[in-house]
């Protein structure tokens, strides 16, 4: 009987068992390894969101300058659209205020032009610009976690 099986199928029953067992074990291990890669990147992080809503675009007619105090971000609106500039000085993190030439830091005298470029003082880098985006319902929000190149302005339909 055994002999017959061996002859017709070419693989002994024990060989088949061994193949299947090791095959399944390897498959399982690969699966577990591949699956655990899934956990390298978390779905959500325990950090406060840097996004915040600023309302409808109608609130920002051309010529608007507004500062969101608790978020330390300026919002401007001109012919080319809306843009958001950080109010945090790149030197040691004081809060800059608008001035006739752009922005002025009260702490060590850094000065920035209206695009946030350094024009004086110890600041090493220009002020950051942030992404402005729109919710489905049209509400605008700023993502202070996402810096965008200087000069990025947003026009919303």
């Amino acid at each position, binding site marked *: 009987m055994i002999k017959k099986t061996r002859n017709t199928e070419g693989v002994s029953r*024990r060989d088949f*068992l*061994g193949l*299947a*067992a*090791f095959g*399944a*074990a390897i*498959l*399982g291990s690969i*699966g*577990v390894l591949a*699956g655990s890669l*899934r956990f390298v990147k978390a*779905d*959500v*992080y*325990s*950090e*406060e*969101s840097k*996004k*915040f*809503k600023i309302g409808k675009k109608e609130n920002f007619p051309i010529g608007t300058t507004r500062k969101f105090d608790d978020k330390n971000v300026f919002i401007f609106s001109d012919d080319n659209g809306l843009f958001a500039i950080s109010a945090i000085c790149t030197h040691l993190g004081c809060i800059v205020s608008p001035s006739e030439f752009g922005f002025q830091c009260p702490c060590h005298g850094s000065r920035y032009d209206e695009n946030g470029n350094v024009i004086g003082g110890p600041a090493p880098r220009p002020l950051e610009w942030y992404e402005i985006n*729109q*919710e*489905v*319902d*049209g509400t605008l929000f700023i993502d202070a976690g996402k810096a965008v190149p200087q000069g990025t302005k947003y026009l919303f*339909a």
Partner: protein
Amino acid sequence: MQSRFYLSLLLISSLVLIAFMGIAFNREMNPEWKKYQTEYKDFLVKNAKDASTRQRAERIQIGMQQIYIKSLERSDRCMSCHRGVENPLMAEAEQPHRQHSGNYLENHPIAKFGCTVCHRGQDRATNMREAHGEEHTHWDFPIIPSKYIQGSCAQCHDYEMLRQEGGEKVARGEELFRQKGCQGCHKIGGKGGDLGKDIAGIGSRPFAYFSMKHVVGDHNLYNWVKQHFDDPRAIVPESEMRVFLTDEEAELLTTYMMTFVTAEMPRNYTLIKNVIQPKIDGESLYKMYCIACHSDGRVSLYDEIFKRTIPAIRNPAFTRSIDDEHLRTIIKEGRKGTQMTAWKVSAAGLTDADINKIIMYITMNRPEKKPEPFGFLKYKADVRHGEELYNIRCEFCHGAEGKGGEGFLGINLRNPAVQKADPEFLAITVRDGREGTPMVSFGMKGLKLDNQDIADMVAYVKTLSQKK
């Protein structure tokens, strides 16, 4: 033979592993929220009223949502299913997609407050059953039913503001709490009687604190509190709690109980508009601390739970015959052997000023005319004769031993308030009786005993405490 056994073992365990992997993979790929978010996105794409809205809807990324709020120690993932909660386009949609009702979110942006700080539930859960904490999930604070949710508002707001601006249920609950005399038996913030449990922090007490055996429906804090208000003894069989509440009042009070939580909100969350405390007068104090047992105090009543008669402390017959000093002693020290609590500041927490206000309220209708003095000291009292008279006249109501109690109409004459009372006061009570109570007049107006007999009886009564 042996290797075959091991190979089979390896094969079977590997297959089991693969099967579990399949399950895990399937779960990972199809979480409950994914279905809802897909529905949400499809709905918005389909119903977009212009091209740009459609574009934005198409850009919606499906993924787990979380609002992490460090100062509240919360990671609310509710929006993983309720993604439309801030979206006015979802005002009419069905749950879980519907926009939040009312204008609450205008002043309570989700990014700052999250959800569970008001609604409770399990912040980190990612499926409905666990997030709402319903049924047998054993989460201590399941999602709070909307009828009680205003209890959450009081974490940050004062009752005056709540009364005017959308928190009327919890504000009414707070009022009821003062009017129903809850603090007659329950301490809160160090003030109140001690017949019942201290209710500080009841709104944030873990599930395990309560006996849920008799609770109908979901076994949770809210049902326990509400059903306990409906019928205390149905939930806690040995309870002595007296309640006279309509269903609505029980709901309002349950809402108010949810305000007693231990965690304090951070400063930048609270908004107290009215710092002035309402003036509390004698009447309010009487309602807060006395009314639960004494009702309006006009008639004495036999209490089925306490198995004793509760005296009519605002009845003119009572107030006429008792002076303020005596009343003050009773209120401050309580009456041993009865449910009457000692209200002094070191016990139930009432200040002398509070007690004075209560006394003024109780004696408000005290008749101008003092009872005719008895002149107890004029009589030479015969205790033995007093005992004989007692056995004929008094025993029926006060019991052979003067203990009153179960089955007797009269009060316990052995308690210190009687034993330490001025015999003059006792003699007047016996002579004139006490209106509104079963105590009739034994003097010339009533049962026609002469003063000597009354003096003898009083003298005997005063000896009761020395008897076994």
